[in-house]
């Protein structure tokens, strides 16, 4: 039997000793950000730059607090559109990928269409979607969906086609049905590709939701952060523009964190991408 004794690692003493690297990895970026914010405020104060050109971090924080009543519903609208679009893109992307790889002919027939749709800049068809969609919200959803959908589709197609040939032979040998091969082999095997699609798609869904709203320019109760951003610009309320921007960044970070966590959760036990190198 090959020996499986774990390598002897000299234990470091105390909490700080054990988690030193993790702590540093968290603290250093936080310190850098804090320093930059201080520098920003310092430059503003020293040069007395007016707020309508560049507001300082204090002014932005102030606006974030005072305008929360306007910004929070907008944040919620953008979050909803992004998440709904991503969910639809996941279902659609995976479903269509499974359909496309069923046979060489189906793929030959349909894949070029999906590529054409993918390479078309989505902003260019946003005006069309606005005409056809029953409400602006639906139009935004369709735009965000279309953008998030393709990376998931193409990654999934790639994943479904990259299954180990010997494992496919093995399944054949044991008389596995098409359904069993899909469920037990092809889907789990393409999970890493799916996760890549999910991470890219999550980021793109937010970008598309913002861009589509710029194009739509909707107003009223159902408007998202992008509209608030434009509105603040027209009114020269630059601190609020920055506040909306901060919220959009935070939303992006949260989406990135969630998708990265999902990816880690499903892959860390077995996939190379989630493993530490052991040398």
């Amino acid at each position: 039997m090959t020996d499986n004794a774990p390598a002897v690692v000299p234990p470091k003493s105390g909490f700080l000793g054990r988690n030193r690297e993790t702590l540093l990895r968290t603290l250093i970026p936080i310190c850098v950000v804090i320093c930059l914010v201080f520098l920003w405020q310092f430059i503003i104060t020293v040069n007395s730059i007016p707020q309508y050109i560049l507001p300082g971090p204090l002014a932005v924080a102030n606006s974030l607090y005072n305008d929360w009543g306007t910004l929070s519903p907008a944040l919620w609208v953008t979050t909803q559109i992004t998440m709904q679009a991503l969910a639809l893109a996941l279902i659609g992307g995976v479903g269509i990928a499974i359909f496309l790889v069923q046979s060489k002919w189906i793929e030959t027939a349909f894949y070029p269409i999906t590529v054409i749709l993918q390479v078309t800049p989505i902003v260019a068809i946003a005006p069309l979607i606005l005409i056809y969609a029953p409400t602006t919200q639906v139009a935004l959803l369709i735009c965000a969906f279309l953008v998030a959908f393709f990376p998931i589709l193409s990654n999934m197609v790639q994943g479904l086609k990259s299954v180990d040939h010997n494992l496919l032979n093995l399944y054949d040998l044991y008389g596995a049905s098409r359904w069993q091969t899909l469920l037990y082999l092809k889907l789990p095997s393409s999970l890493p590709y799916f996760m890549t699609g999910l991470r890219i798609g999550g980021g793109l869904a937010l970008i598309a939701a913002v861009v589509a709203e710029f194009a739509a320019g909707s107003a009223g109760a159902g408007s998202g952060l992008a509209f608030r951003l434009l509105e603040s610009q027209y009114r020269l309320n630059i601190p609020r523009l920055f506040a909306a921007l901060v919220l959009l960044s935070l939303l992006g970070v949260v989406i990135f964190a969630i998708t990265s966590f999902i990816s880690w959760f499903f892959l860390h036990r077995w996939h190379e991408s989630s493993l530490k190198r052991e040398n």
Partner: protein
Amino acid sequence: MSTSQAPLIPAPGDARKRPLVVMRSVSKMFSSGTLALSDMSLTVEGGEFVSLLGPSGCGKSTALRIIAGLGDVSTGTIDWPSSRINSKGLPEGDISFVFQEPTLMPWQTVFGNVYLPLKLRGVSKSAAREEIMKTLATVGLQDFADAYPRELSGGMKMRVSIARALVTKPKLLLMDEPFAALDEITRQKLNDDVLRLWRETGITVIFVTHSVFESAYLSNRIVVMKARPGRVHADFPLKTSMSRDAHYRTSEDYRQACEKVSNMLLEAIGGEEH
């Protein structure tokens, strides 16, 4: 020990000596136009340990895959006289295959990988548990049921692959250069394990290799193949009164066997260059 064709008609009365698989004049042409196998006939009897030995390109792996039903024959037939045949002409559940790579699913534990053939047959996990643990014990991996393949060494992964092949209790085990990628020490250990499993279970083994020493150590019959096109050059039994273990490796019997196999292989390779 003389070069002879294996008898097509088995001796009556001996259950183990019944033909398990009969290849008759099998040829295989790839779509690229390469003739991978030409007019190959081979009868393997129950309980035999047959090595298919030859230079690369001699079609030994192709022959093995054809027997497993991975790919059709171009001409000729393959019969399974003592098995029940399914709709694809294969004795389902009677054959297992061990590839050159361990071919494990990285997202499944050792247990999950060995469970696969039973899962595909619709056996529930709880019903399969005992059989899986028993099979893992025969390859010495009972303590690693919950490990993932990436946590195992190359030799251990190969053992999982062998356990997966044995869990269905097949009649015929097909091995395609299974230990070619392993180091010499691991390889010898696994050779001994395969021999032990073969003796204990009475399973029939067809073993593809390009190693003279491996085939001389393991098999009680050797089929030497020739390349371009792939065909049988020689087919002879290897008999020894000794048990095949560490002592056998240093014995005169083994030396003679190696010499004979080596000469046959040289003949087969030499024949290419006329």
